[in-house]
């Protein structure tokens, strides 16, 4: 019989968790609540004696200094309503898993099959609340009903029932496993019904390709020899759906595009990926010649570049948007621990050295109605921030760089970008570490977590728009500790050469990982009955495609499996041998003795013809606002500093450990009070060396409202100029592209698909042009193409977004530069010219306009200037440097000044101008977001040397750092157009998100 152990804080101990919930109830739901206390509940469903239960309750489950425990008796007292929230059956219960291990250590007996510990939390609410209030607190704040269940009891019912009754959220599935055959000899309509209802996300054309494959007489004969009939099994259909999903196959990026520009010129593009992304890297590498530093690009889970003779760097950035929309906490947690497996599963395996994250949300203070399926942006914000906090911190990987971007359209789908870099010895056991191979006969080995029904159809569901019926099962909850244990083990197995090949189990589960590995050596034979399950009752197709987390797939030579398994046992990591790799040409899947899938590897990987995609570019025209010339812009600057895209994100950043592993050099916050926003991060991955890794990013989705070509050019430039600002070298720097688009496929649902596709083409054109000019090879990337919400009535499409991440090297991290001004008397330089480029700027957004004059990147001038600036950095001549982006010069100057706690006197008449004089005025000089500019300060004694190095580039001394705590900017008319105390500016900048 299951028993309840409840753990309550002693009366005099503060309950910060309860206090936080109280604040959130007041703040967001505006309900009167006097007090919230919390109680932890463990439901122990295992054969334990009474004394053992007492020992467990008093020992590992409670802290006697601050808590009391209750066995079989309720702990709750003194409340008006009690809400108990626990997980639904089958949802990963990390605390329950740890609790179970603790019991096993204590008793010395392992749990038997079916036994377990389940956790839940009680919230005791006091206050004048109506039942409906408690219901809305429960569903609006305490419980995500998708993955959790809740019980509400008022005090009287609680007393009458003598507490909350015991319930065990065990999965009770049917034990009988079945394999269905699907009849594809049906009408087109019926084919589409099969695809839609099965969440296969296959188009009619794809269904027909599958249909004709199974008609092929040779296929029929081959199948007969394996005991299979002419109809595909559900296992086969699901395997194809995963392999061919947009998520895994990138059909849009590999499709054939018919592009027509605004002048009617037509162009056929065969695969955007090959024509632009792959070509960029190929051409840049050729241009670099001997200086090429790429080691492995596009073919593995992450890109690999050279760091120095002894070490190689690995980097990957992923998105986890759709799961985060449904379950922000679990989705984002899985996002970060999921992307960790990419560098870990690259080459022979890399040690992880930092995370990056960029989130795009709607306004957390949004107060208009939302379509029913959408969670409020504030819940998404809270959940995502916490999910990545737990995933990153618990994995012991510092989160060193990131940003938060806001736009109302991200209410349709939030974007959750998570990146991870790793480092590995350049050679391991005599082989280059970025290479790996599979020999036929190698064993198929899975390590880590067990398989459950979690994450079924993740790959296919994220290949569709979010809708009313998006499946619950697609959501998983990650477990950083299980993964960490596995990594601790695998890195040692790597160094002992115990495996030949390693890859991640992510989207599509075993179907994708083993499918891809089978592609490496030409086939596999795998028995799904050997896969370890979380609970009985999974059908073979579910085992094959489950995206249950914390799993890696490996190829282990038979001679080494003994040592591999023994080491895994000692590290507490589960290992299962599922079959072997072959060169049969077949993806051969069994369940016990019975063949359940028999697909030619070639058909899986090359059976799909390219999609045909129309694209037509018509440049949008927006209303051009009249620029209002005023005497003073202090109020505008203050408002800009308080806008969501510019304001301080410190309340979020401080929740992320950005220093673990000991190599932190430039942290997210810097300056006199450790609160100025850094442009880039610098990390020393090898602690006894001063060589540093520099990482930065650029993202500017607002610019897509005018032209995605320039959105892309500006994002790349922003990434590189942030990188350069901190001291990154141009000799070894690479880029990663993450495209998040709204559906660009013309259809009934998406009548403007050809425009969105044209936006994608233009973005890719810029990617090639700018990366070529900047010598930036693309080493990895990802696309997420269906970031829309559609419930049949309301459609919300995100603005097309490119996150451009930049990673490279600084020869000596002790030369790194931060953005805070350093001392009074230092000369302030603005590098680069300013133009009338307010289009899609934060300044116009503040006034409710988009405008048209988008910043245009001049790559040739910028690259030359960046190189000269880097020379000045190496020579130790730069005191501070801050990049100009959102909000232009005024915002950058304010940030540098208040970060350094010194004022600045600037003169706009000395700012270099390009283009038409008619657009030159105080507004454009202050707030234009012209690209490629840096605000630099230099000590007076370094003036001559700095100017000598910068000679031949566009730069101008525009003012001086002052002792007084005031930012003062003179306008073209000679009068002061901005004058504000640093405290006031900083307060405006810090206030908006300070308390979130």
């Amino acid at each position, binding site marked *: 019989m299951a028993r309840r152990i409840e753990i309550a804080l002693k009366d005099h101990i503060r309950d910060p968790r309860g*206090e936080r919930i109280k604040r959130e109830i007041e703040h967001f739901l505006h309900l009167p609540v006097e007090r919230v206390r919390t109680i932890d509940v463990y439901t122990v469903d295992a054969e334990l004696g009474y004394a053992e239960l007492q020992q467990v309750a008093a020992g590992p489950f409670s802290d006697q200094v601050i808590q009391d425990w209750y066995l079989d008796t309720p702990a709750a007292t003194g409340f008006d309503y009690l809400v108990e929230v626990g997980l639904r059956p089958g949802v990963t219960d990390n605390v329950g898993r740890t*609790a179970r291990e603790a019991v096993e*250590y204590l008793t010395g007996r392992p749990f038997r099959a079916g036994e377990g510990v389940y956790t839940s939390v009680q919230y005791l609410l006091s206050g004048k609340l109506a039942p409906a209030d408690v219901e809305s607190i429960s569903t609006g704040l305490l419980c995500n009903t998708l993955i959790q269940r809740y019980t509400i009891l008022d005090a009287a019912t609680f007393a009458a029932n003598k507490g909350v009754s015991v319930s065990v959220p065990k999965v009770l599935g049917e034990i009988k496993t079945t394999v269905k055959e699907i009849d594809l000899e049906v009408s087109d309509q019926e084919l589409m019904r099969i695809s839609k209802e099965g969440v296969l996300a296959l188009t009619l054309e794809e269904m027909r390709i599958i249909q004709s494959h199974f008609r092929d007489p040779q296929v029929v004969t081959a199948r007969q020899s394996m005991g299979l009939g002419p109809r595909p099994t559900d296992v086969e259909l699901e395997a194809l759906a995963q392999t061919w999903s947009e998520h895994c196959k990138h059909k849009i990026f590999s499709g054939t595009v018919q592009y027509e520009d605004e002048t009617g010129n037509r162009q056929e593009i065969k695969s955007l990926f090959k024509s632009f992304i792959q070509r960029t890297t190929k051409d840049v590498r050729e241009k670099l010649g001997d200086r090429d530093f790429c080691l492995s690009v596009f073919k593995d889970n992450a890109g690999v570049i050279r760091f120095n003779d002894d070490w190689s760097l690995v980097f990957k950035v992923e998105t986890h948007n759709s799961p985060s929309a449904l379950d922000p906490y679990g989705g984002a947690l899985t996002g970060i621990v999921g992307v960790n497996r990419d560098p870990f599963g690259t080459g022979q395996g890399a040690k992880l050295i930092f995370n990056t994250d960029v989130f795009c949300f709607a306004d957390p203070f949004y107060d208009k109605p939302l379509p029913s399926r959408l969670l409020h942006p504030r819940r998404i914000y809270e959940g995502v921030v916490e999910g990545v906090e737990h995933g990153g*911190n*618990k994995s012991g990987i510092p989160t060193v760089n990131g940003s938060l971007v806001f736009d109302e359209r991200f209410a349709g789908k939030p974007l959750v970008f998570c990146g991870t870099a790793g480092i590995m010895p350049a050679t391991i056991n005599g082989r280059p570490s970025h290479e790996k191979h599979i020999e036929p006969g190698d064993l198929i080995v899975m390590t880590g977590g067990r398989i459950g029904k979690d994450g079924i159809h993740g790959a296919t569901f994220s290949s569709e728009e979010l809708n009313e019926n998006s499946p619950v099962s697609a959501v998983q909850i990650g477990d950083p500790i299980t993964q960490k244990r596995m990594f601790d083990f695998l890195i040692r197995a790597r160094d002992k050469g115990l495996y030949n090949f390693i890859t991640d189990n992510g989207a599509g589960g075993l179907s994708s990982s083993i499918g891809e590995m089978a592609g490496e050596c030409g086939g596999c034979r795998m028995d799904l009955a050997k896969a370890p399950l979380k609970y009985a009752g999974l059908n073979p197709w579910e085992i094959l495609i489950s995206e249950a987390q914390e799993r890696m797939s490996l190829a282990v030579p038979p001679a080494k499996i003994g040592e591999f398994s023994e080491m895994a046992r000692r590290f507490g990591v589960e290992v299962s041998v599922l079959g072997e790799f072959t060169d049969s040409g077949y993806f051969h899947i069994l369940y016990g003795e019975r063949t359940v899938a028999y697909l030619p590897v070639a058909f899986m990987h090359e059976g799909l013809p390219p999609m045909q995609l129309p694209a037509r570019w018509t440049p949008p025209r927006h209303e051009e606002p009249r620029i209002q010339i005023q005497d003073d812009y202090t109020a505008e600057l203050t408002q800009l500093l308080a806008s969501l895209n510019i304001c301080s994100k410190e309340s979020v950043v401080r*929740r*992320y450990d950005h220093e673990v592993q000991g190599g932190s050099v430039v942290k997210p916050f810097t300056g006199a009070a450790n609160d100025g926003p850094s442009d880039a991060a610098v990390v020393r991955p090898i602690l006894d060396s001063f060589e540093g890794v520099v990482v930065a990013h650029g993202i500017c989705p607002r610019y897509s409202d005018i032209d995605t070509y320039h959105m892309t050019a500006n994002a790349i430039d922003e990434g590189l100029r942030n990188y350069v600002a901190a001291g990154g070298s141009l000799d070894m720097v690479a880029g990663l592209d993450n495209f998040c688009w709204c559906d660009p496929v013309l259809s009934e649902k998406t009548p403007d698909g050809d425009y969105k596709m044209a936006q994608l083409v233009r973005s890719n054109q810029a990617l090639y042009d700018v990366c070529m000019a900047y010598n930036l090879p693309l080493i990895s990337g990802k696309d997420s193409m269906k970031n829309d919400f559609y419930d049949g009535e309301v459609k919300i499409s995100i603005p097309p977004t490119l996150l451009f991440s930049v990673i490279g090297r600084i020869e000596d991290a002790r030369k*790194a530069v931060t953005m805070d001004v350093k001392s009074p008397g230092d000369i302030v330089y603005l590098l680069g010219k300013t133009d009338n480029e307010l289009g899609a700027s934060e300044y116009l957004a503040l006034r409710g306009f988009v405008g048209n004059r988008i910043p245009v990147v001049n790559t040739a001038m910028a690259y030359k200037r960046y190189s000269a600036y880097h020379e000045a950095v190496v020579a130790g001549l730069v005191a501070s440097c801050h990049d100009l982006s959102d909000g232009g010069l005024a915002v950058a100057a304010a940030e540098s000044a208040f970060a350094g706690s010194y004022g600045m006197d600037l003169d706009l008449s000395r700012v270099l101008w390009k283009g038409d004089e008619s657009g030159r005025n105080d507004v454009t000089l202050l707030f234009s977001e012209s690209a490629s500019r840096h605000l630099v300060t230099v000590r007076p004694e370094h003036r001559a040397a700095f100017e000598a190095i910068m000679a031949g580039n566009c730069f101008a001394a525009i003012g001086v750092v002052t002792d007084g705590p005031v930012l003062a900017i003179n306008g073209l008319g000679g009068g002061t157009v901005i004058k504000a105390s640093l405290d006031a500016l900083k307060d405006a900048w810090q206030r908006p998100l300070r308390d979130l």
Partner: protein
Amino acid sequence: MARARAIVITGNGTNCEIEAAHACRLGGFDEAVIAHISDLLSGDLRLDDFHFLNLTGGFLDGDDLGSAKAQANRLKYARVDELSEHLIDQLLRFIQAGKPILGVCNGFQLMVKMGLLPGFDGNHLQQVATLTFNDCGRFQDRWVYLKNNPASPSIFTRGIEKGVYLPIRHGEGKFVAASQEVMERIEAGNLAVLKYSGPGYGEPTMEFPENPNGSDHAIAGICDESGLLMGLMPHPEAFVHRTNHPRWTREVLPEEGDGLILFRNAAEYVRSKLL
């Protein structure tokens, strides 16, 4: 000549092992071995063969039952494969041999929850204090000024003039004593080695963010009466070089970071007393 050997235990969520080992080497240890807990449980490594034990930071078992609770339970009950003893026997032997132990962050939580600290009267298995959720309710990564108690018996903080500046990175760092008597005894014995203070290392403070978690008596770190066992929430291993400092680009700082002195003192103690 005998070698000074430090050991850093990792596994199940420990995160700071590499920089802790690095700090041990910089501090003067000839060897700093990163040992996975399975190396100890299998009997391949024994604590007896080392002079200085580091219980370092991380999220042991995800802090799922409260920080470090599950590891405290594991160390208490886990058996060593090859030897007929529990790991706790090795640990108590280590203490009896007069060898120093430093617990940082999660390691401090572990020491307090096992009862290793404050370890009154040499009873190292009786929990009399705890570390619980920060008053602000959130994990925090920020730098703090720690006022040193020069009268403390801690061997780790010898020679610190006023205090040290180090980062904290935790969600459960609020020090709470089980009773007023316990707190009085900690104070009377000068066992509260480091306290959160302001930039001048003046009076201890209860104000956020200088005191980032609301610790009673502003306690950031304590030691036992012997001074050989010490734990602290801030991370000394995270500040061993000036480039770790958040303001190194604007201040004139010595090459060596404030945290290194703890490891240097441990190494000197080992050399003078144990080799």
